[in-house]
């Protein structure tokens, strides 16, 4: 390839980070930022100690506690001894190896994929990894960011590199503009419904087109976050002025002359005109409705006014079997409308939709209204900073006045390993990313949706089209359009 051949942003970032590439072996890829948390790191540190190794680049490593921590008031003790042991091990590992930790009680604590961007650590053109599949979130900034296993966490700790084969590229072009009440969450749920949960395997998504350009950074993060639900380890968006504006002034953003130099460098990153992708798909944003899932993987999603599909409409026996099993688990009837389906719990939060603009939107929908009787609305800010900001803006008061349970930050009921969970048989509508069997608690049933859809559903106690909310045009603008 000559220097003048048009390249995608993925190819540019890749070329910038290849340290070595032996014949027949994967490339040794340099990693700019390594995020760690309590759940997928302990065994990696054990491995380091066993081999007598140190952390090569503590200044390019950052830690937080998010997955197993309680979201009850921080003044209360951690009741789960196993989770507490995991947290104290993280604290010790960070202290021993010189890694900065934004732990419980720190004002910068939060979900790992919320605090990276918030601190300005996530920047365009970087390679970013974390032992967490939703690392794809950081792709919103034009970074190549993907989840890794614990063996790979150990490799990055020890060498600040990873062995990687170059991924294929998958263009996701989203043309047109979203209608009021339809959000970036609906774009990504629509994509996954179309291509399936394995559709992007082996690829990196690049989201492009008019609808993507019109999104705020937080909306872009929601889309990139769920790239993994479409099978792609990474998904990214070429950076633009929206990106630079978001980063500017954050604690770890370059400043002064370094800022100008960084922006000049970042402007070289976007995919060149004429660059080619291995695969491509086009979505018309203006034709999208709010999406909701009905099944047990994120690809089982439908426009909110549609009916639950029937197994006998499917010709492929494997797909039919999967749908039958999913409907049995969800206790839904083939052909029933999803609108009007009762829910017990509404969960607003997670690395997908736990940012301040998500909370602003949901709160605006709930302002002056009450959560339906018998429904529990749980709001979990994505970080301590998001929580403080929501309290400062009065959003927390709106939630509380509506009858919501206003929590501390953490992964909470998205992964349900901290005690925040559904009871067997309960239905939840959730702004999180996975509706697998038991994901939000053993026997629990999850409908994935946007914050607006979740808020509208909280008010009525049944799955509700957010476009029926009074003043939806003005409301949708609250999230930034």
């Amino acid at each position, binding site marked *: 390839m000559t220097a003048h051949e048009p390249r995608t942003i993925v190819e540019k970032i890749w070329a910038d980070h290849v340290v070595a590439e032996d014949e027949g072996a994967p490339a040794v890829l340099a990693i700019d930022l390594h995020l760690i948390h309590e759940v997928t790191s302990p*065994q990696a540190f054990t491995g380091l100690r066993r081999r007598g190794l140190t952390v090569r680049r503590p200044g390019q490593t950052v830690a937080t506690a998010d997955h197993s921590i309680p979201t009850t008031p921080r003044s209360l003790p951690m009741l789960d001894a196993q989770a507490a042991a995991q947290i104290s091990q993280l604290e010790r590992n960070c202290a021993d190896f010189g890694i900065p930790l934004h732990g419980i009680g720190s004002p910068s604590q939060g979900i790992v994929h919320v605090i990276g961007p918030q601190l*300005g650590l996530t920047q365009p053109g970087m390679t970013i990894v974390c032992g967490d599949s939703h690392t794809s979130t950081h792709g919103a900034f034009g970074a190549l960011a993907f989840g890794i296993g614990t063996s790979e966490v150990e490799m990055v700790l020890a060498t600040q590199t990873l062995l990687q084969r170059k991924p294929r590229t998958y263009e996701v072009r989203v043309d047109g503009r979203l209608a009021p009440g339809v959000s970036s969450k609906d774009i990504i749920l629509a994509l996954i419904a179309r291509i399936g949960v394995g559709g992007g395997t082996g690829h990196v998504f690049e989201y492009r087109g008019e609808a993507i350009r019109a999104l705020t950074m937080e909306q872009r993060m929601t889309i990139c976050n769920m790239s993994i639900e479409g099978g792609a380890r990474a998904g990214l968006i070429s950076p633009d002025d929206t990106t630079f504006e978001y980063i500017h002034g954050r604690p770890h953003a370059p400043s002064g002359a370094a800022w100008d130099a960084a922006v000049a460098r970042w402007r070289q990153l976007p995919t060149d005109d004429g660059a080619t992708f291995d695969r491509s798909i086009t979505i018309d944003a203006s034709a999208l409705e709010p999406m909701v899932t009905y099944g047990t993987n994120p690809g089982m999603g439908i426009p909110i006014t549609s009916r639950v599909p029937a197994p006998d409409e499917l010709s492929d026996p494997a797909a039919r079997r999967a749908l039958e099993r999913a409907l049995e688990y969800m206790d839904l009837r083939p052909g029933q409308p999803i609108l009007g389906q009762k829910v017990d719990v509404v969960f607003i939060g997670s690395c997908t939709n736990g940012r301040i603009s998500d909370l602003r939107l949901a709160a605006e929908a709930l302002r002056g209204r009450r959560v339906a009787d018998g429904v529990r609305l749980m709001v979990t800010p994505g970080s301590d900073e998001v929580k403080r900001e929501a309290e400062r803006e009065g959003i927390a008061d709106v939630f509380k006045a509506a009858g919501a349970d206003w929590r501390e930050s953490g992964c909470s009921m998205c992964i349900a390993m901290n005690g925040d969970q559904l009871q067997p048989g309960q239905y939840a509508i959730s702004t999180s990313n996975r509706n697998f069997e038991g994901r939000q608690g053993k026997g629990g049933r999850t409908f994935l949706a946007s914050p607006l859809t979740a808020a509208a559903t909280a008010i009525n106690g049944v799955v509700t089209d957010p476009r029926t909310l009074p003043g939806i045009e003005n409301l949708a603008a609250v999230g930034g359009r």
Partner: protein
Amino acid sequence: MVEPYRAFSSRIIPLPAENVDTDQIVPARYLKVTDKEGLAEALFRDWRFEEDGSLKVPPFVLDRPEMQGRQILLVGDNFGTGSSREHAPWALAAWGIRAIVSTSYADIFRNNALKNGVLPIVVDATTHRRLFELVEHDPDAELRVDLAEQGVLLPDGTTIGFDVDPFAKMMLLAGTDELGYLLGKLPRIEAWEAAHPPRIDTRAATPAGG
């Protein structure tokens, strides 16, 4: 550190489910461990056990008496979708699974499996169907998995070839791991780092106007 991966013969555990996610393979509540031990009991936990801790009736396939000791798991498309938890292959390996056969795997799961002596074999859709038919017709059919030859030997004497990343194959056969290889690249890494100063320092915020 894993053992060198040698050829072996085993009967098959059939699990004809598509898109089996890592939350089913190891539910999240088992991720609070700080070591890799004891995860066999977490494997497919919620598909195997009732709320009260008793085995499901009829038992999940893993718990059927005739399935004990089998080392090959035959599964539907896109196995291991979902989270990056390496606990999934740790649990499979702890159970004794040494090879999985499917038409496809989720990327992160495949990488993790290869690092733990669990070989994710990919076959085409026709072969996949043929294997499920084989095990339906003869539940005790035995396969021989030979990584060095990249072949699965069927009872009828035919061999199914499969592709595998040559580097991963080399690592598995030698029983070595990628970290050792990377440590051997340290001079190259040092040279690269010297030419590419870090763009951030997580330990210190940028001085204002700096």
